């Protein structure tokens, strides 16, 4: 892996966001809107259920912020690729001495940068509007974020592989894939709410363990070692699988001449 190559690919995205105000707004617009809508909704619910659900606001807002981390990371990877498709730049990059893993690493780094930005923004907004202190999650916040980011990378690689395989017609998958996972990921409710036959699926996803862990920290203040171990192990497996899927699709793309169709469309 050549770090200068990765750095150059990241630089292209940094230029893109610093140059283009619209891109920048896109980056902060949705997370902000979501936080406001969900936040006020939960406040309303809490007031009207007169304390039946202690901590409802913190559960939901915490889940929202953490889910956004996963989503931003996935977007970072998938949109990095789409930016090259949209700009008809894909061939320029693929005929440059860039290894597939370097391309992926750069996309993941872009995911990381996106998380840093929206994460900071959401933390500030949530503390301002809802007196929600993300740092009440304490030290576990770091491994939480790292795990959600890693799973976001996996989903991003899978989304990219789909677009590579099925062309721009599959472009909307870049936004759909995370939401395909969301119902089973125990984001806003515990795994135990799911029907029994769905629970193994939920437990196979690294992010479910993070959201379970988050609720545990919030209610008991205990550092959720078990959840984190599960999430980390599952993430490692998913990362390897997702990278393999991506590499495999890239081979198919080379064989079928799919890379070039992004050039002339």
């Amino acid at each position, binding site marked *: 892996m050549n770090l200068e190559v990765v750095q150059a690919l990241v630089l*292209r995205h940094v230029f893109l966001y610093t140059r283009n105000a619209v891109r920048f707004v896109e980056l902060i617009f949705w997370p902000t809107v979501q936080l406001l809508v969900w936040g006020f909704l939960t406040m309303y619910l809490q007031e009207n259920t007169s304390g039946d659900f202690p901590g409802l606001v913190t559960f939901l807002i915490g889940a929202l912020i953490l889910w956004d981390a996963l989503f931003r990371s996935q977007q970072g990877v998938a949109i990095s690729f789409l930016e090259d498709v949209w700009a008809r730049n894909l*061939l320029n990059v693929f005929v440059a001495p860039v290894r597939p893993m370097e391309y992926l690493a750069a996309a993941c780094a872009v995911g990381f940068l996106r998380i840093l930005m929206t994460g900071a923004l959401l933390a500030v907004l949530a503390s301002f509007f809802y007196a929600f202190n993300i740092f009440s999650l304490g030290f576990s916040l770091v491994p939480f974020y790292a795990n959600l980011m890693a799973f976001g990378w996996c989903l991003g690689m899978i989304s990219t592989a789909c677009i590579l395989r099925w062309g721009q017609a599959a472009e909307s998958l870049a936004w759909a894939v995370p939401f395909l996972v969301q119902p089973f990921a125990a984001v806003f409710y515990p795994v135990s709410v799911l029907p029994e036959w769905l629970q193994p699926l939920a437990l196979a996803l690294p992010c479910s363990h993070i959201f379970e862990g988050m609720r545990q920290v919030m209610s008991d203040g205990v550092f959720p070692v078990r959840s984190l171990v599960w999430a980390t192990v599952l993430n490692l497996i998913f990362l390897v699988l997702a990278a393999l899927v991506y590499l495999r699709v890239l081979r198919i793309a080379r064989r079928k001449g799919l890379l070039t169709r992004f050039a002339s469309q």
Partner: protein
Amino acid sequence: MAEATLEVSELTKRFGDFLAVDGLSFGIRKGEILGLLGVNGAGKTTAINMVLGLVEPTSGSVKVFGEDLARHRIKILKRANFSSSYTSLPGNLRVWQNMLVFGKLYGVRNIKEKMDELLELFEVGHLKKRVTGQLSAGESTRVNLCKSLLNEPELLMLDEPTASLDPDIADKVRKILRKVQRDRQMSVLYTSHNMRDVEEVCDRVIFMHKGKVLCEGTPEEIVKSFQEESLEHVFIRVARSGDFVEELGSGDGGRTTPGDS
């Protein structure tokens, strides 16, 4: 025979049951410009894409700088480059930003000087701070060419690079390319549908038809062997009766090997 920069042998590409390139063999010597000609769909772009590693051949081999492309792709791509009218640099970045990014991708040292030198050479130095997407087609073509020369490639692939240039600029660009190529002893694989372009730029041309080599030689040799007035006339004749010429071609004196011209 001078050292071969590129050696393509028995290259075949099948898309499903469609044969796009069929047993194509040719070579490019160091410092030579080879033109790849043929009607739309003859297989030129597919051949170039295989040399660039974008498309995997069904069979056959590509050797660049004496090494097998399939095994040393990254190493080879560092010393090669590509430009065409159907790709563009990210439109929302400024010209200098794009040059900087690609300079770094190719591991170019002193990128800034290199960038200035090339932009000046192609007379687009004043566009350095402009947004790439707002350039005219001709300006962006020239910026693309600057990108393709950033790493001082030893093998340059140009797929219809002059398609959107006005005659004046096209003429200038050909002369600049020719000069850069001579100064650096660069090998170039060139496709164009403009026969004037080809006659002026290429040392040797290959006519492709249905994925096969129909004939090859210097532009003059080909014109002579077909007893036509110009390359354009040869092209039209090949286009309209390619299959007929194909049969003739096997016994034709028009075919010259890369080594003996």
